[in-house]
């Protein structure tokens, strides 16, 4: 089930809100757990058992690690942790990467093993990472052990963040999980506005610019002129950001309605002035996960430049492959690894000396080209697309179709460019500050914002045969 659907907004959400808030506090986590299971099972019920297995295993291992540590059996605790990590990675390898591994072996060695063809369980990359963060943190003593299976299950399966993140580490919400009075009016109202903003980003902005990207990709790439190729690449650049960050906004907003505070996942990544900064602003919960559980344990930057380069490569290979079981994602990860290393040791100093707008341009150029690699599971398409972008296919700079697409999407592109910066937020705040805090005008403005997005988004959803969701594959 996705949030931006008639089903979620007008069946699931009202029922879960109603039952959750009329239930006594003691059983609210249970209700959230049950609804989350239903949410996950929708459309693909078998994998709910996989998730329950994962929950039960890591819950049990968490208890065991805690017990071993208290009894002074450090080695046993470590062994238990290794089991947890191995099983989680095993689940991920089997359900997500089996086809990829077999296919790669076949093409490398010329063998013909049949592909297992296992359908990908939704959100598996997210929940295995969350459960691992829990056992590791219990082992490290970074968080307390969760004594109740229900509470642990609620954490892993919690529907707002279940299928597309943010990757919430257990320690972030450990206390809120147990807190008796976590829900409050402040958070709920905040959550409502955040949720509506996310719906608008996803349904009105991401889906619509996605049409432009699809239009360009439907053309024979060998004849696409430079400007059109860039238009397509920019369209995808905006689509993936507004899609994914919109989803994170909806998740954070929904979390707040139920009294949970997830960490921010995006901080205007496209205004970054270096690749290093871009990755501090993009999918923050994923990069922090890798930093905390892979990069630093590998030694980070503490064992000399050579080791650091090695560590960065490992992390970025993994980041790449985490995004999907195809070689293009590996290439995309390594591509970023290379730029991060270059920035660290060579480029960084030069880039800093450039004027600000050139720093932006440099960053965006690398990011946009990166998205082309990311978008195309087929390397030859990526190659043709990049050739078109840099005029190597001899199809000219633009044609009448370019003009048509430009003026059709001019307004949307303008909104997207603006929306990628922090300006709308600042202007919005300035506008609200013109009026009395909590006064009628302010209230009306906020209500108009929510209701406006609601009406237009529902119109698009009712019409929509077009509501794909990009982060489903991961």
């Amino acid at each position, binding site marked *: 089930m996705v949030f931006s*659907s*008639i*089903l979620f*907004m*007008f*069946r699931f*959400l*009202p029922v879960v*809100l109603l039952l959750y808030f009329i239930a006594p506090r003691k059983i609210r986590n249970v209700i959230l757990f049950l609804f989350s299971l239903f949410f996950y099972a*929708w*459309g*693909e*019920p*078998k994998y709910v058992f996989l998730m329950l297995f994962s929950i039960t295993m890591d819950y049990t291992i968490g208890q065991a690690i805690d017990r071993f540590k208290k009894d002074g059996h450090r080695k046993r605790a470590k062994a238990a942790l290794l089991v947890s990590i191995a099983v989680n990675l095993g689940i991920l390898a089997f359900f997500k990467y089996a086809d990829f591994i077999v296919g790669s072996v076949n093409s490398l060695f010329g063998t013909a093993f049949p592909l297992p063809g296992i359908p990908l369980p939704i959100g598996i990359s997210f929940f295995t990472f969350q459960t691992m963060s829990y056992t590791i943190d219990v082992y490290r003593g970074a968080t307390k052990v969760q004594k109740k299976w229900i509470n642990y299950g609620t954490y892993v399966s919690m529907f707002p963040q279940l299928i597309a993140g943010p990757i919430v580490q257990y320690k972030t919400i450990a206390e809120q999980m147990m807190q008796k009075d976590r829900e409050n*009016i*402040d958070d*709920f*109202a905040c959550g*409502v*506005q955040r949720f*509506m903003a996310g719906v608008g980003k996803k349904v009105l902005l991401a889906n619509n610019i996605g049409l432009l990207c699809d239009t360009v990709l*439907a053309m024979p790439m060998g004849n696409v002129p430079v400007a059109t190729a860039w238009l397509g690449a920019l369209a995808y650049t905006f689509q993936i950001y507004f899609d994914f960050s919109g989803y994170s906004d909806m998740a954070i907003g929904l979390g707040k309605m139920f009294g949970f505070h997830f960490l921010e996942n995006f901080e205007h990544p496209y205004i970054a002035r270096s690749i290093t900064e871009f990755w501090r602003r993009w999918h923050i919960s994923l990069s922090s996960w890798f930093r905390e559980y892979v990069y630093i344990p590998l030694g980070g930057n503490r064992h000399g430049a050579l080791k650091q380069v090695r560590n960065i490569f490992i992390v970025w290979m993994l980041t790449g492959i985490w995004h999907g079981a195809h070689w293009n994602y590996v290439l995309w990860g390594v591509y970023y690894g290379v730029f991060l290393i270059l920035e660290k040791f060579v480029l960084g100093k030069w880039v800093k000396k450039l004027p600000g707008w050139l720093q932006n341009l440099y960053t965006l150029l690398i990011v946009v080209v990166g998205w082309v690699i990311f978008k195309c599971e087929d390397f030859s398409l990526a190659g043709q697309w990049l050739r078109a972008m840099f005029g190597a296919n001899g199809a000219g700079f633009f*044609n*009448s*179709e370019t*003009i*048509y697409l430009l*003026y*059709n*999407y*001019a*307004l*949307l592109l303008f909104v997207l460019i603006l929306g990628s910066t922090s300006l709308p937020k600042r202007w919005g705040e300035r506008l609200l500050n013109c009026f*009395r*805090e*909590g*006064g009628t005008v*302010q*209230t009306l403005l*906020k*209500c108009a914002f*929510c*209701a406006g997005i*609601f*009406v*237009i988004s*529902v*119109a*698009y*959803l*009712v*019409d929509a045969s077009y509501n794909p969701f990009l982060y489903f594959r991961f």
Partner: protein
Amino acid sequence: MKKNRQQRVIIGLFLLLIFGTTAANLLTPTKAFSDRENRNLAQMPELSPESYFSGEFAKDYESYITDQFVGRDQWIGVKTAVERATGKQESNDIYFAKDGYLIEKHTGSFTGAVAERNISCLAAFMEEMQETYGKGHATAIIAPNAVKLLEDKLPPYASPYDEDIYLDRIAEALPEGTWFDSEAVLRKHTDQQLYYRTDHHWTTRAAHYVYEAWVRERELSSLYISGYEEETVTEKFQGTIEAKVGGDVGYDSIQIFRPKVEYPYTLVYNRRETKKDLYDWDALEKKDKYALFFGGNQPIIEGTIENGSDRRLLVIKDSYAHCFLPFAFQDFSQVDFVDLRYFNESLREFMEKKDYTDILFLYNASGFAEDPSVAKLAQ
């Protein structure tokens, strides 16, 4: 305290929107059919362990609630209005063209595998027909769509797939003497209304021009346009394209051409029902008013006309033929027409039983390119 009130109002509004819309949906009775979209709406699927675990139930349930969403038509109108307000010249693959025309873009129709295969199917079939019925007695007409003929009305710089490329390829593939170039005929009359503004069909007038040119080329006697009286039968027609964009797009009128000298005829519908009038006047009371001609799509209709002609015509066609066929009643004593999409018999066996003198294959370009049942020509 003030802040608190603001938050309560926002929450109240949100709950009102979510719960209000949900309640309105639950309280609205389920509809079986949408006149506007001319299709059956999804119904509440049956819940069983099998349907649940296969995911079938989830899929069907989602189509059900989307199809049955309260005020569906108005919501789609809102979406189109927003789309137009933001400067978009198209919505759901339809151009907002000049003079109130809604013109289908047909993205991808002509480049698919079906489009490719249908060309060779038709070429083989026409070859065989020309051999069987003789030169000049087998014709293929693939009418261009509005997007081609009304290209002057498209938004500036719009560049849809060029149908001519596809039509030229068909013309090239067909045996000599079987292709009739309807586009060339229609080009001469672009000052007239050749297509409906809100529907994907050509007008009766357009069909008439093509018919006249065709019979003249085939040297059949025919009444000229003076031989008909044009009659407007409705001015409240909104066709299939309108249903896809909604909103305020205006109406079309439908004309019929009544011959001044009308020969009596008998029509047998699908081998069961006999009718004396080709017009289904009840259709004018419904949404799909184009069904005025022969009551819409039928697998097979056999028409016998008492006009003394010794020529008997079989037409293999899609719905573009519906307003075209009445003209043939002047020149052929037998006019049978088969719609391959619904006709489930062997075409060859059917043709052997009847004694036709002429064969006509009549489709519109995008319909031909997209229709998988054209493959039945080989049967």
